């Protein structure tokens, strides 16, 4: 794909951010809460302060980790036609993930999300052409707390044939269970390692911290062949410098240090460079996930990732409270910037209230917005077919092109056909009930849920998944002592 690209950071800017990041990693270091990871870093020549749980990482370790990275990572679908090949040349979309609230499609009530919401949203994502990778959009909060994340994965694997990325592998035990479920769904470890149909997004903690559970889980995922995203989220002005580039440095240090630990433990592990830098709104204290700053940081994050030869994963997350004008502006702004920079995986469509609340209508509206952007940035080129000199000559002066095969053919590739937006005349629009985009989106949701059937996993795979969930399920938490 040729694709239109804009460039925000020059080669010199990229170099400066890289060297600046190395300086921070050597001089300030990062906090590493996991004793296993501190031991690993210590054995490889990092300066460890056990009291502060911090590690100063020499530049050569970072450079070595970058050399071991993978530049092409295929997020395999259960059905190979949905494989998302992240190769630094193509952009893919992914829904937003793990909200805990949903607005009920039938009653309009805002309530805790359920497994049924997850199944419905997964089915819709499976049907939509501009969603390429799936994230469990909401949590099954009606399931027992200890196994909510396992139910999320089970429902996702059974209701889409696309690749499933989750973000709930936050302890070593979680990592083992989620991996076992991935193996079961793929038909065994060998098959999974060949075609990983799940992956895990892991958040680093700004500024400059790595949670113990998350990193222990990450090393386990890497050993088990589960692709990882390390996703940094400094908030400019709060957990990162207010200058956007300063926050990119902080985030870059977090991602690179996580990469160092992972590559030391499992050389050649599949790691995607993730960055979601959105400012804290300084009036409301809410994360401005639909801001132009988020979009521009995601574009810069993609440029940094590609500078290292790594695929990028960036996001958008509107702060609108309902589908409508604000949500559309936020999705559009948030997606167009990073996609113009060539983001490999762009997450975040479909949830509102900054990644918290599911509206099924918004999922299909965002799919339409992405469709329009995909057309906008596809790129144009002059070749015999597009120049169409022979057709122009054939049609001649004053006639029209409607009855040409060339028209029929290029209509399908060169013209975006909206499925929700109205292009009919005012007259027709009035006669058919003056439908808004939200109205047509509701119709589309209903149609998909009524008609779209996704093949479930084989019975024996489902028996394995159920067995894993039953084994893990335990009484409510409580009474544990503080883990140091």
């Amino acid at each position, binding site marked *: 794909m040729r694709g239109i690209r804009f460039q925000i950071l020059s080669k010199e800017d990229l170099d400066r951010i890289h060297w600046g990041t190395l300086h921070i990693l050597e001089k300030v270091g990062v906090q590493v809460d996991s004793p296993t990871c501190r031991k690993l870093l210590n054995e490889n020549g990092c300066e460890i302060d056990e009291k502060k749980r911090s590690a100063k990482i020499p530049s050569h370790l970072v450079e070595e980790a970058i050399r071991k990275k993978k530049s092409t990572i295929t997020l395999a679908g259960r059905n190979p036609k949905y494989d998302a090949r992240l190769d630094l040349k193509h952009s893919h979309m992914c829904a937003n993930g793990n909200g805990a609230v949903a607005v009920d499609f039938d009653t309009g009530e805002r309530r805790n999300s359920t497994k049924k919401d997850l199944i419905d949203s997964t089915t819709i994502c499976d049907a939509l052409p501009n969603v390429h990778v799936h994230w469990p959009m909401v949590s099954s909060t009606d399931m027992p707390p200890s196994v909510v994340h396992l139910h999320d994965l089970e429902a996702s694997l059974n209701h889409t044939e696309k690749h499933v990325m989750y973000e709930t592998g936050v302890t070593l035990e979680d990592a083992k269970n989620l991996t076992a479920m991935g193996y079961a769904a793929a038909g065994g470890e060998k098959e999974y390692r060949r075609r990983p149909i799940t992956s895990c997004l892991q958040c680093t903690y700004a500024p400059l911290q790595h949670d113990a559970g998350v990193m222990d889980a990450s090393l386990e995922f890497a050993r088990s062949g589960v692709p990882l995203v390390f996703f940094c989220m400094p908030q400019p002005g*709060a957990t990162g410098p207010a200058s956007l580039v300063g926050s990119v440095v902080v985030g870059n240090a977090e991602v690179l240090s996580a990469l160092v630990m992972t590559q030391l433990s499992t050389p050649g592990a599949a790691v995607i460079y993730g960055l979601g830098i959105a400012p804290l709104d300084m009036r409301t204290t809410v994360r401005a996930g639909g801001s132009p700053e988020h979009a521009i940081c995601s574009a810069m994050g993609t440029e940094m990732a590609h500078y290292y030869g790594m695929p990028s994963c960036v996001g958008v997350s509107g702060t609108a409270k309902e589908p409508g004008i604000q949500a559309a502006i936020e999705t559009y702004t948030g997606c167009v910037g990073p996609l113009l920079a060539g983001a490999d995986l762009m997450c975040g469509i479909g949830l509102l209230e900054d990644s918290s609340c599911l509206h099924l209508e918004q999922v299909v509206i965002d799919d339409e917005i992405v469709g329009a952007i995909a057309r906008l940035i596809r790129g144009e080129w002059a070749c015999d077919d597009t120049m169409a000199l022979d057709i122009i000559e054939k049609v001649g002066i004053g006639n029209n092109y409607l009855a040409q095969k060339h028209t029929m053919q290029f209509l399908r590739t060169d013209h975006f056909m909206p499925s929700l937006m109205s292009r009919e005349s005012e007259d027709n629009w009035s006669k058919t009930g003056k439908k808004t985009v939200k109205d047509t989106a509701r119709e589309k949701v209903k149609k998909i849920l009524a008609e779209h059937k996704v093949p479930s996993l084989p019975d024996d795979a489902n028996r394995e998944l159920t067995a894993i969930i039953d084994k893990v399920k335990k009484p409510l938490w409580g009474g544990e*002592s503080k883990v140091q």
Partner: protein
Amino acid sequence: MEEIVTRLKDAVINYEMETIADLAKQVVDQGVDPLVAIEQGLAEGIKTVGERFGKGEIFLPELVMGAEAMKAALAVLEPAVPQGQHRATLGKVVIGTVQDDIHEIGKNLVSTMLSSNGFEVVDLGVNVPAADFLKKAGELKANILAMSALMTTTMPRMGEIITPLKKDNPSVKTLIGGAPVTDVYAKEIGADEYSGDASGAVDSAKNLVG
């Protein structure tokens, strides 16, 4: 009011984080009643800052710097308050982020907002086990126990603290928040108040002690 108390108030309003401690020392040296200095100087100053923030005239960094200035002066003035006397506050809040969760920026903002609005805040930090919340709430005679969780995986821990708290210490009110937390969820686990953002937490806390 003594001139130096007015200067203390202005020092909060002008976010003089680095120099306000020296000014507070002068207050003590000059024999000014530390309670007067706190209530008519610091508290009045932070009230002005809070009002400006509420009107949208200033932003969060200014509010935080104002609160930091107040904190620096309190560290000097509070030890000088004669035993048995206490500064007037709206109430005592014990706050923390639940076990296995280390996301603290929201919790820190709530702490700042509450202290700049007249509450005394004791921050237990992050990754706080249920037992610590329960122990501190009782020991410190808290009016409000405030908890945060950012992850859907740690969110249920708030409910596991509220249930025994209601039994052992029914007078302590609970206030919860965090990205995945909702009003519906708060009701479900029996929390007394919920807030979706740090500014709202002040109103919630006032409801609880009002």
